[in-house]
């Protein structure tokens, strides 16, 4: 069974934000919600690196563990989906997420949170809506995965730094890249997300 993961090759990322734009467009993400973002480490200094980050779809996802209504769950492919019908907007999944993936629309005064929204691996949602239906799209965004396609962010990456797909396949691609070019700053976030790093 394929285990879906994300890998951002920080040595290739040019901070063009094509992944961010692609995600926002493909999933019609509302204003203020940022499913994917590009973070730049050591901006302007030697060794500057940019990493594109959304939900990593972790192994034993901490968000799923802390949810008081158990609305977040992993699928067979390792994709972590959630059911917006059950979500109560308590905010715990954000405190638990090591990568800051969950986002909440503000629905009331001060801190009132609406239903949690996050990267779905372009695999639709974890609710009762039929896969690929208009209702599912309105709530969760596109379901490319159901059509056998990979997430839009990775497809649109201008330098192919953001890789998405089966964990073993993209790990292999990254390894070959690092060996061929002679350098690589590592698979950012893999140890925390998947409890396993890529040894080159």
């Amino acid at each position, binding site marked *: 069974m394929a285990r879906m993961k994300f890998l951002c090759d920080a040595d290739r990322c040019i901070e063009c934000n094509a992944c961010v734009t692609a995600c926002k467009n493909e999933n019609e993400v509302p204003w203020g919600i940022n499913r994917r973002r590009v973070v*730049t*480490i050591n901006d302007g200094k030697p060794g500057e690196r940019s*990493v594109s980050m959304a939900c990593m779809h972790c192994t034993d996802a901490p968000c799923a563990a802390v949810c008081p209504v158990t609305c977040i769950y992993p699928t067979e492919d390792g994709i972590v989906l959630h059911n917006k019908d*059950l979500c109560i907007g308590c905010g715990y999944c954000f405190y638990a997420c090591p990568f800051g993936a969950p986002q909440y629309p503000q629905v009331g005064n001060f801190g009132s949170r609406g239903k949690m929204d996050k990267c779905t691996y372009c695999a639709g949602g974890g609710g009762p809506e039929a896969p690929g239906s208009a209702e599912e799209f309105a709530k969760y965004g596109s379901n490319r995965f159901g059509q056998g396609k990979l997430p839009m962010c990775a497809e649109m990456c201008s330098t192919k730094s953001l890789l998405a797909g089966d964990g073993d396949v993209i790990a292999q691609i990254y390894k070959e890249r690092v060996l061929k070019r002679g350098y690589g700053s590592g698979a950012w976030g893999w140890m925390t997300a998947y409890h396993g790093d890529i040894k080159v």
Partner: protein
Amino acid sequence: MTRFVRIRLFIVSAALLIIAATIPAQAQKLGPDGAPNPTASVTDQGTLLKQAPRIEGRIDIPDQKASVLEQPAGREWDYFHEILLHWGAAIVIVGTILFLGLAYLIIGRVRIAEGRSGRKILRFKAFERFSHWLTAISFVVLGLTGLNITFGKIVLLPLVGPDTFSDVAQAAKYVHNFTSFSFVAGLVLISVIFFKDNFPAKVDIDWLKQGGGFIRNKHAPAGRFNLGEKLVFWFSLAAGVAVSASGFLLLFPFYGTDIPEMQIAQVVHAVVAILFIALILAHIYIGTLGMEGAFEAMATGEVDLNWAKEHHDLWLARRLKEDHRDVAATTPAE
């Protein structure tokens, strides 16, 4: 330009160019084989995480929280909430209930030794009772809705199913958030009203030495509040302040706090709340089942004279003097 100036200009620029050409490129690090090594200047994620507990960078969007690339502390907070808090809370609360059950079996209901006299005296005025019940009912509502966040998915979800449970949890969240204000109001009221009667006094040591009213044939002196009640007051005040302050931060997330502060606020809120619940369970036990003649004090405001004589004799003497009543009239009729 004069000839001298032109020569000087030529010499200075040539010198600068020669110096620039001979200084090796500082910024670019070389690998062991002499080839350029772009990763040499990079601080890898392992080093970054050792320097600070999280990796942060620069972002283009206004949400400052998004600048945190990785905060592994999230997994630790998950461990606290799902493992430590679940087990700790279960042990503390179930343990308290078992302990109180044991107390009831061994000590039983503390009776008024000389029986009721039938005569009453006012112990708590209407406003005092209102303040107490405002706080008490708010506390029970907050406690139940709060426990639902931690234990609801274990205890309630299997009974009613995910959809109903979500609706209940959603309503519970709003009830918890809004009831917190009445709790704080009540807490302020009872803190101010009962403050002066809860200062530690010498009589409290004597009360403790006499077994605190639990040993039948010993007479334990006390003022308006005995040491046990004073401890409940001060612990409740401290716990109430802690739970209100941390709760306030949780109610207005990221208004001046960052992710680690929110995690700490939640930890404080949960731990203090559980201990507070245990304390109040004991307080409820003593005020209802544990002692005859106690509940009416807060329910009607009046207590039996014999009860007052046995448990709060110094207070009773003072009250009788205020009311100009005869102390001898406290002896029960035959």
